């Protein structure tokens, strides 16, 4: 025992892996950390909604129409307190919001992931192939970006009709161009680097060069854009659902909940629209805070 403590071995110098450095740099901003924690809390609430919500808002047997439009804090017929009030159907708003978050997050994250796959592949193709392919893809990107997202999504949903898949499709069409432009931009820079040249000299197959060498080095800006686009997608879905063009009435997202409260607002029943809006706001702001910090941390120009 004593022999090991007698000769104190100097601790090996701590080598920081890139990931550790990334984590510590991200955590340097308290507000970003708060954003991340808020967002994780929201995700947990959304995932666990069926187990932690006081009521299942889809189960008509649990709803009591007599409890309709109750003020926040009232005790309902079922015996538990409606902390955030109830809507016109007697649905507990707190449970409605928890379930609504699920749909908002699924639509937001789902469309962002698909748009990222589509956009990143096309952007990579444009950068790697160059020439005609490049200019064709980039013209499409320009065309897409010259129209406001809300309008393009409106057009698509006007033709396709309501539905979660249709909303996701519309959001993908609206958003892929941002990813394509980002990836093409960084891929054009990266492909001139020596390591790509080295890989080409080794006669590696093109697919391997693109996916194993080029793509990982284009990831940082893609992650930043992706985070911001998730927030945008959630906001856009809420707006479309509010306009009555988004998700169907059977799958109420936050936007639809807010829209349901619209008619009761003029008679002073604020809570039906107010609380889902707060939930939406907190979700969007927390994602944006994380995205802002990611942009600073992952930006190579700000590297110390």
């Amino acid at each position, binding site marked *: 025992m004593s022999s090991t403590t007698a000769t104190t071995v100097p601790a090996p110098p701590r080598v920081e892996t890139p990931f550790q450095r990334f984590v510590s740099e991200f955590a340097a901003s308290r507000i970003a950390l708060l954003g991340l924690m808020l967002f994780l809390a929201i995700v947990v609430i959304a995932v666990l909604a069926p187990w932690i919500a006081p009521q299942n808002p889809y189960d008509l047997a649990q709803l009591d129409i007599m409890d309709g439009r109750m003020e926040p804090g009232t005790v309902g017929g079922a015996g538990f307190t409606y902390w955030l009030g109830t809507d016109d159907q007697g649905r507990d708003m707190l449970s409605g919001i928890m379930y609504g978050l699920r749909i908002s997050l699924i639509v937001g994250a789902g469309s962002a992931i698909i748009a990222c796959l589509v956009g990143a592949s096309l952007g990579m193709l444009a950068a790697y192939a160059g020439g005609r392919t490049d200019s064709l893809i980039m013209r499409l990107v320009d065309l897409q970006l010259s129209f406001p997202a809300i309008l393009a999504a409106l057009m698509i949903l006007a*033709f396709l009709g309501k539905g979660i898949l249709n909303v996701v499709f519309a959001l993908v069409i609206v958003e892929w161009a941002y990813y394509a432009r980002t990836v093409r931009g960084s891929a054009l820079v990266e492909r001139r680097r020596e390591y790509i040249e080295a890989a080409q000299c080794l006669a590696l197959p093109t697919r391997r060069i693109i996916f194993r060498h080029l793509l990982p080095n284009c990831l940082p800006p893609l992650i930043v854009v992706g985070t911001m686009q998730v927030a945008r997608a959630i906001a856009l879905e809420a707006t479309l659902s509010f*306009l009555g063009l988004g998700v169907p009435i059977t799958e109420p997202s936050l936007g639809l909940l807010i829209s349901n409260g619209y008619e009761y607002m003029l008679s002073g029943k604020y809570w039906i629209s107010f609380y889902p809006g707060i939930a939406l706001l907190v979700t969007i702001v927390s994602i944006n805070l994380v995205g802002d910090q990611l942009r600073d941390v992952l930006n190579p120009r700000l590297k110390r």
Partner: protein
Amino acid sequence: MTAFLLRRLIQAAAVVLVMSLLVFLGVFAVGDPIEILISPEADQFERERAVKALGLDLPLWQQYLVFLGNALRGDLGRSFVFNEPALKLILERMPATLELAIGATVAALIIGLPLGLYAGLKPNSPVSKGIMATSILGFSLPTFWVGLMLIMVFAVQLGWLPSTGRGETVTILGMRWSFLTRDGIAHLIMPALNLALFKISLVIRLTRAGVRETMLMDYVKFARAKGLSPARVTFVHVFKNILIPVVTVVGLEFGGTIAFSVVTESVFAWPGMGKLIIDSINVLDRPVMVAYLMMIVLLFITINLVVDITYSLLDPRVRLEGKQ
């Protein structure tokens, strides 16, 4: 220059053509117009006659050519609901939307410029930090929800402003405007502010960045060295120079404002084009949808064309790019 103009015009025309094809396919090929246009009790003979009269027996590409020919003559079909030419309906509602969009732009400049100027001149004061934090909120807040909350507070609880509609209007040049009456102004304030929300944040950020950059310029240092008063340096030397980029961006955003007024008009029941298109989508009034989409496409292509041409006049590199 002429070659550039010509190429750009041809490109714009091509985009209009492609968009018209997309709109045509989207509206006419996805659903069956016969189901909507003809009563279910119609017999086989009546159906066939209607199909012929509407030209629906022709192959799709011929139908498209007919649609294109009519569109060129300004005929985009009649609304099923109002039984009036769709284009006329939209043009009737355009002044209301323009009024709202212009109101929002003016509000964004009136509110955003002073705040941005202050934040740029005193970047470290707590007030400036507050302004910048609020501007982040302006980007994150869902516009329609803020609109609802404005109604909640100012119309329902305080009762200061009317909640919806356009109020009293005055007719000038055959168009109805509400900004000339007291009642109309009261109706305009909330929707315009709501639509301006995003732009206020944008103007604050642009102005702040501009001020901070300009303050370091030699001509500002020189003006101060000359002993000019701080107010004169700020308003004559700095402010004038940052106005150029701010006005450019706000001008470019105008198309987006018109598009986004769809949301604000729905919240405040403002009787403009945006409300019309949402109502039309909900009752499947296809001709109005087509007319609105084509108008918006034309509007955006015109804005983009004007911007490109202006840039090419200012920056010769843009003109020469295609020649390489």
